[in-house]
């Protein structure tokens, strides 16, 4: 029997008998997770109502998982009224692809997978191109092509303002010109929760419903809502090599550079990207609460293990200007 003043989050099939109290309905003020959730649902509904062809960028990571759950909530009992789009570089971890091909289908979401086949056929890879150029071809260009192909005028992304300095000034509705580019000096002022969705032909808007969430909020919400995530986030013994100060998980011998030898290490991913550019961290955390406990004691930011952010000072800002998320 549900107490009238409490909401019981539905029990996960994975952990029967476990229900989590997600705060009470304080009649005056929501607790912070409920406040963030409600704001995000408002944003998702605004964009779905106002844009002709929205799409949700689905990166398979923890933030995407949270965004997907919020979309389920926003349109319940209806289906999510827009497709998901995964930009596949073909360098993603096999566990990610497996998850991508099962979970969205389970919840009845439509999924579009886009690859820059032309660049892949021409042999694009991070080893010979370097991370900047590889990202430009397989992620940024691929994304812009997919958005143009689908004639999408709005794309939801799971980026958060706490991730990186240049993101702290990002709008919730981030305007992109007809080339998909971001101009930090020409963003529309955003007051209250009133969003300007007006566009001319070819222009688009990136919508960030998780703007105000922190990494800790995301994990607390995954815990509270029992949201399924890719197993790479949980620690276990994996084959790794140490490369340029990062722990690189090796899935097949083909990923080894000359002279490298794998070793077994208990580790996990803190954020998910492409195999060659996403480092693992040493960890024993194999449940969500343990990940949260570990996080609270962490003093390093989650994007630290992403090669692309560290190529140059302000490199995230440069990538965003070109059309990266």
């Amino acid at each position: 029997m549900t107490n009238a003043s409490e909401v019981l989050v539905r029990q996960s099939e994975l952990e029967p008998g476990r229900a989590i109290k997600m705060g009470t309905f304080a009649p005056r003020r929501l607790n912070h997770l409920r406040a963030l959730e409600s704001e995000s649902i408002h944003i998702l509904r605004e964009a779905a109502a106002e844009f002709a062809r929205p799409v949700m960028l689905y990166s398979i990571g923890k933030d995407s998982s949270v965004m997907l759950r919020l979309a389920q909530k926003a349109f319940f009992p209806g289906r999510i009224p827009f497709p998901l789009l995964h930009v596949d570089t073909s360098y993603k971890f096999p566990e990610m692809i497996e998850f991508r091909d099962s979970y969205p289908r389970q919840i009845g979401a439509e999924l579009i997978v886009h690859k820059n086949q032309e660049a892949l056929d021409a042999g694009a890879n991070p080893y010979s191109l370097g991370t900047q150029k590889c990202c430009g071809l397989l992620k940024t260009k691929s994304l812009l092509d997919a958005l143009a192909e689908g004639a999408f005028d709005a794309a939801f992304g799971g980026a958060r303002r706490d991730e990186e300095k240049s993101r702290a000034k990002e709008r919730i509705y981030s305007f992109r010109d007809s080339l998909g580019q971001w101009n930090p000096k020409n963003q529309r002022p955003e007051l209250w929760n009133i969003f300007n969705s007006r566009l001319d032909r070819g222009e688009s808007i990136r919508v960030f419903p998780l703007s105000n969430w922190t990494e800790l909020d995301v994990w607390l919400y995954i815990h509270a809502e029992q949201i399924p995530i890719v197993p790479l986030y949980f620690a276990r013994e994996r084959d790794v090599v140490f490369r340029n100060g990062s722990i690189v998980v090796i899935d097949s011998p083909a990923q080894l550079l000359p002279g490298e030898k794998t070793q077994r290490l208990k580790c996990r991913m803190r954020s998910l990207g492409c195999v060659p550019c996403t480092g693992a961290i040493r960890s024993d955390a194999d449940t969500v609460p343990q990940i949260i406990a570990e996080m609270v004691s962490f003093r390093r930011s989650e994007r630290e293990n992403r090669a692309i952010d560290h190529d140059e000072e302000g490199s995230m800002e440069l990538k965003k200007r070109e059309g990266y998320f």
Partner: protein
Amino acid sequence: MISSAQNTAYEGFSAFLERNMNTDLLRFTTAGSVDDGKSTLIGRLLHDSKAVYEDQLASVKKSRINRSTGPVDFSLLTDGLRAEREQGITIDVAYRYFATPRRKFIIADAPGHEQYTRNMATGASTADLAVILIDGTKGLLPQTRRHAFIASLLGISNVLAAVNKMDLAEYREDAFHKLQDDFLALAAQLGIASVQCVPISALEGDNVVDRSRRMPWYHGPTLLEHLETVPLPERDSLQSFRFPVQTVIRPDATFRGFAGRIASGAIHPGDPLVALPSGRRTRVRSIVTYDGELPQASSSMSVTLQLDEEIDLSRGDMLVSPGRLPKVSRKFHASVVWLHGTPLELGRTYLVKHTARQTKIRALRIRHRVNVNTLAEEPATRLEMNEIGSVDFETHVPLFFDPYSSNRTMGSFILIDSATNATVGAGMIQESVAAVQLAEEPENEFAASGGPAIPVAPGERYARHGHFPGVVLLEGRSALAERLERFLFDVGLEVLHLSRSEFFGDAFVETVRVARAAGVIVLYSGGALSRETKDRIALEFDNRFLDVAGAPELPFDEEQAVRHVQAFARSLRFVDEQSRIQQKVN
């Protein structure tokens, strides 16, 4: 196997988790001038509350730039864009996040220089509290006045005045008390309800997070203690239920729900509601969420409402409690912050977005402009970027609103330039305005207007009213006509009830002809009219004519008759060519 020591640690952690999932959220904005040390304060707050990661701190430590006098330039933690680091000033609002065991915080960090009133307004628009920095060596400057004014304008009732650089003021008690008295006087003048003054040194860390031993005379909370403990009452005084419909959820023929975020009040299944603009009454059948149906929902929750009766509602409509209705009007008076390089022009058509409604809007008159440094009201005929004015507006279709001071969501709007799509203004509604008051123009403006007179075309009148003229015949039913006149008038229509029975034949036709020329909707409740007179009226009004009493297919039941009149009134809605095209494109 978990050892008992680990078990205890895990229990401690469970408590931690539980607490973290139940903390509340405080959003605050910061304002200070270039040299007030605001970035240093925020950097210090993030650093001392351990919200800065080691790699971020390392990148600041090894940066080529250090504008501070200390070993670490904390301000670099917040200057996110290249241009800012190069120019050494903050350009745009930055959002920062940190948490303590007591609360989660979102900081909207707004740059404070003169030309960035718009950024301060942006930061303040979502904040519960404002931290205003005052240089302890200088006293209240014009910008302090500006910052406090903008905070109060945007509806912030909690202000923390951080008197900074106490290290340079030799930690003197009298220096602090002088500033405190001055600031309390300013806050009282602006009507800011709750004020706390804290003497700090952001550079040295005095009274930011930890209590300073160098100011033993100060017994109040540190800056962070105040942020952690300040009571957060519902910031809006409005209690009545307001629910702007964002979208309709209709997965199949069996379910129809209206999705939105509650702007004000609380609701339970069974509660009566009024739908706007139709005025129809209904009840809540259920409050639907992914997590199950709820026994109650309240302000700021996103929910989906199922109603008892099938009524026609779409995005931009509103569900409200019948007790106290919002104002329904096309004319209102608002404070406006102008955000764009192209000034606000009187008479020009802009787009307005208010709750989930978007329509056209014109500024009719600027009552005055506020000098943000002196707070003096000055006459103005336009508003430049970063200027704040008090403006009378008229919209194309009615908005449903409450004053901003009673509810932010119900009283706020943005203005969009329909040619460039830029967000050009932000408004806070003060009250609706009687048409008579709006029509008053100073005589000298009329004298100065000169030039050849351009006749007022019928289309211009219809555009201003938002509807075509029409006639509703309610012969002999004056009580019903009176009710309808009040209702239609309140939703913004130009309506006139003619009840006198002496209108017969030509006299009546002549009267309604004048009403048509004025663009008015006539409700006639006088004596019975002949068939011939009715035919002539129908012809005069291009068949925008509803004969409630005479049409045998229209039922005599009052509520049904009202519905027919409402549907008729909707059909009169004036749509100009551009909107018609826009609607087709959409």
